């Protein structure tokens, strides 16, 4: 197997500051094969791609392409050598205001030996040749901005293929495509595979992976945690290698709840998805787990009034609940700690105290005037209860560590009593001790509300929740009480396929 590898990575390392992101990664890509790379957020996938595509330097190890050493200093160098990357953001790959023909030949507009004058006839001829080779049926005169996302993606890939690369890297190419559009992309990839291109395909979507993969490589915490190339491919094994338990943690004592606080009936969050019916009880901590892009955030946003459901109803405290805005959700006692705190949570110009008080100004003011004494008292109390490490409640957010910033985000919503407390990826970019603190606090304070977590990492669900729900294809596909969880069945549900009952 080893000697026909077109592209080889050997012991690649990379650190940012003193944090090691890649700890010696070795992998091979073969001509005419689609190798799928799986890994949770922060596993190091994108760092690896950026090193291969010449964006980052590597800190150790080596790469070789067709037997020769490969060490690109710039993205252009990687492309010239025959390693082409199509990045996740489609619009990075095309220029929206130019037509398809110009986009397909864009890379020939600069560099040495290119004629100064722009020759539209020649551009069209070259573009036609590229399009024909790829079987691309798009009007070459159309402007990119008038095309659908899928067509733009096709153009971006065709443009990449115009270099006749040996290695093509696709970073989550279907994340913004519909399933019919994705099918067109897969047909194109099949064609490229036949032409003998080695393809590295990064994705979380199990349906894509099942459709395309010849081999699967799982990554976790900066190292390769599993390589799967025996047919039939072991999809659950791959998911397990990517998400499975790292260390045996102490089990929590799962609680039952008698009194329902929140329930959905036939809730639909995406077009064509099966409806979701779930019930959350008083004092219960429920985790919803599933891969990236299965609709966890869409569900969280629907519960919080950020988006409207496509169908179905919600009940809170036995009464119909249909928030039209986040303000209405908060007034009803439904709070959300949004994922990606830098984007959705932290107000950078505000200090810790002001960040904590943000949603509850009305309750801390009289005649519109904020009572700062109360604001400060609440902030101090939260800092103490959650063990936020800071000099005072007036520290800038930027001076706090990631874990402590996240604690502030949780503290923001813990300062008032919730009926339904939702946390979307609350442990992202959080060190283990802060994660334990937050989880412990969630469990000890759980009485009187329903707590709902959305997490990708199974460990996080297993060490915080009383009950674990599995989400796949925008709906709930499995439920487990967190005592003696059948991990195999859970992983199969995450992987989205029928259960392989091989012992």
């Amino acid at each position, binding site marked *: 197997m080893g000697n026909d590898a077109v592209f080889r990575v050997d012991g690649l390392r990379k650190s940012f500051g003193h944090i090691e992101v890649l700890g010696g990664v070795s992998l091979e890509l073969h001509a005419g094969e689609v190798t799928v790379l799986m890994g949770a957020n922060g596993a190091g996938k994108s760092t690896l791609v950026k090193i291969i595509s010449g964006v980052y330097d590597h800190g150790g190890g080596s790469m070789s392409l067709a037997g020769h050493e490969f060490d690109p200093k710039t993205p252009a160098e990687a492309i010239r050598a025959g390693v082409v990357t199509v990045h996740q953001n489609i619009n990075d790959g095309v220029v929206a205001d130019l037509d398809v023909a110009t986009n397909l030949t864009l890379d020939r507009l600069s560099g040495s030996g290119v004629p100064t004058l722009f020759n539209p006839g020649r551009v069209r001829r070259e573009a036609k040749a590229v399009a024909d080779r790829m079987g691309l049926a798009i009007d070459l005169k159309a402007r990119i901005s008038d095309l659908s996302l899928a067509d733009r993606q096709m153009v971006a890939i065709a443009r990449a293929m115009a270099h006749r690369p040996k290695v093509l890297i696709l970073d989550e190419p279907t994340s913004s495509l519909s399933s019919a559009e994705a099918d067109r992309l897969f047909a194109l990839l099949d064609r490229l595979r036949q032409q003998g291109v080695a393809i590295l395909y990064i994705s979380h979507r199990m349906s894509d992976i099942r459709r395309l993969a010849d081999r699967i490589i799982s990554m976790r915490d900066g190292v390769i945690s599993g390589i799967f190339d025996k047919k039939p491919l072991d999809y659950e094994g791959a998911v397990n290698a990517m998400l499975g338990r790292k260390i045996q943690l102490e089990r929590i004592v799962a609680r039952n709840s008698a009194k329902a606080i929140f329930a959905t009936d036939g809730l639909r969050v995406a077009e064509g998805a099966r409806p979701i019916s779930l019930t959350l009880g008083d004092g219960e901590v429920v985790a919803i787990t599933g891969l990236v892009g299965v609709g966890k955030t869409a569900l969280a946003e629907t519960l919080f009034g950020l988006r409207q459901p496509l169908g179905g109803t919600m009940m809170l405290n036995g009464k119909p609940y249909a928030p039209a805005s986040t303000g209405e959700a908060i007034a009803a006692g439904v709070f959300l700690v949004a994922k990606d705190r830098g984007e959705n949570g932290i*107000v950078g110009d505000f200090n810790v105290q002001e960040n904590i008080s943000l949603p509850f100004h009305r309750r*801390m003011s009289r005649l519109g005037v904020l009572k700062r004494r109360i604001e400060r008292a609440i902030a101090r109390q939260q800092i103490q209860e959650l063990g936020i490490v800071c000099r005072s409640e007036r520290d800038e957010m930027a001076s706090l560590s990631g874990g402590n910033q996240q604690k502030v985000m949780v503290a923001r919503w813990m300062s008032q009593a919730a009926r339904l407390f939702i946390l979307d990826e609350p442990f992202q970019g959080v060190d283990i001790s802060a994660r334990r603190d937050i989880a412990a606090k969630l469990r000890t304070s759980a009485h009187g509300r329903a707590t709902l977590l959305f997490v990708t990492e199974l460990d996080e669900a297993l060490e915080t929740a009383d009950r674990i729900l599995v989400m796949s294809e925008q709906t709930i596909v499995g439920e487990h009480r967190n005592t003696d969880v059948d991990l195999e069945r859970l992983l199969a549900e995450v992987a989205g396929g029928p259960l392989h009952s091989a012992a």
Partner: protein
Amino acid sequence: MILRDNAIRYGFIVLLFGLIAYFAVAADGFVSPQSAVFIFQSVAITGVLALGVTATLVVGGFDLSIGSVATSAMMAAAYVMVVLGQNAVVAVVVCLVIGAVVGLINGWLIVYMRVPDLLATLGMMFLLVGLQRIPTEGRSIATGMTMPDGSVANGSFGAAFLALGRHRFDFFIPNLIPVSVVVLLVLAVLIWFFLEYTRFGRMMYAVGSNERAAELAGAPVKAYKIWAYVISGVFASIGGILLAARLGRGDIASGNNLLLDAVAAALIGYAVLGAAKPNAFGTAVGAVFVGVLLQGLTMMNAPYYTQDFVKGVVLVVALVFTFALSGRGRR
């Protein structure tokens, strides 16, 4: 580090006092109540406009239409009193309504039509500059003027209205403080209190710093943004009322510098006390700073045509203070 912090925090205030000390020594008669009042009076109108634009800067926007809102309000006040023969109260109400409506339209364009703030308010500026000329076919408005249809406008500026521009209150010295300065001080305290101490002001800062986070905290972000433009429009129209009262006529050619001066004051305000963000106190200090500088230079016989250059220099230096030295170039 502490030295640097103090330089950022107090640098501009020290510069202001240094400037005053320098002029006190170099220019005869600079230090007197009359001179101080004159400085305040010279910045009163631009200061009011600057306080309004500060509100839009706080929510992360910008309002380029303030200058033309002020001149439109001035022309409207003159038209209402001189041509339509109404009294001062009607004129003031009409001006304030114009300011509020323009603010609403600006906010609507930006929030619902998704026009970028600079472009929306730039468009509104051109629109108003043109609109204010239509009723009189491009002529200035004064008592006794001939209208396009041949009639003569016989109305006049009411005494109460003119008092807004000309009356002076006694303050230790008789006839010292003009109404416009009082208006400036009152509005400055109001907007400062509003932005710093009310929950609405706090949320406006949150919207400006991280709109998404503010929305997720339950704030009606769109409403806050529109309100900011309404505040800006109303303040600009108050500036226009003061301008009309000072001139006593609707002068088509006046008010050209209002936008530049007001924006400069608000941006200089970023640097005051190391705030690195728009704030009402800084804006007021920024306005006074420009006023002191110009008054001092005038008293030292610097030619008038150097004024815009000096203002530009001060603005650039202040922006360097804000963004480079404090290392907070997020905006």
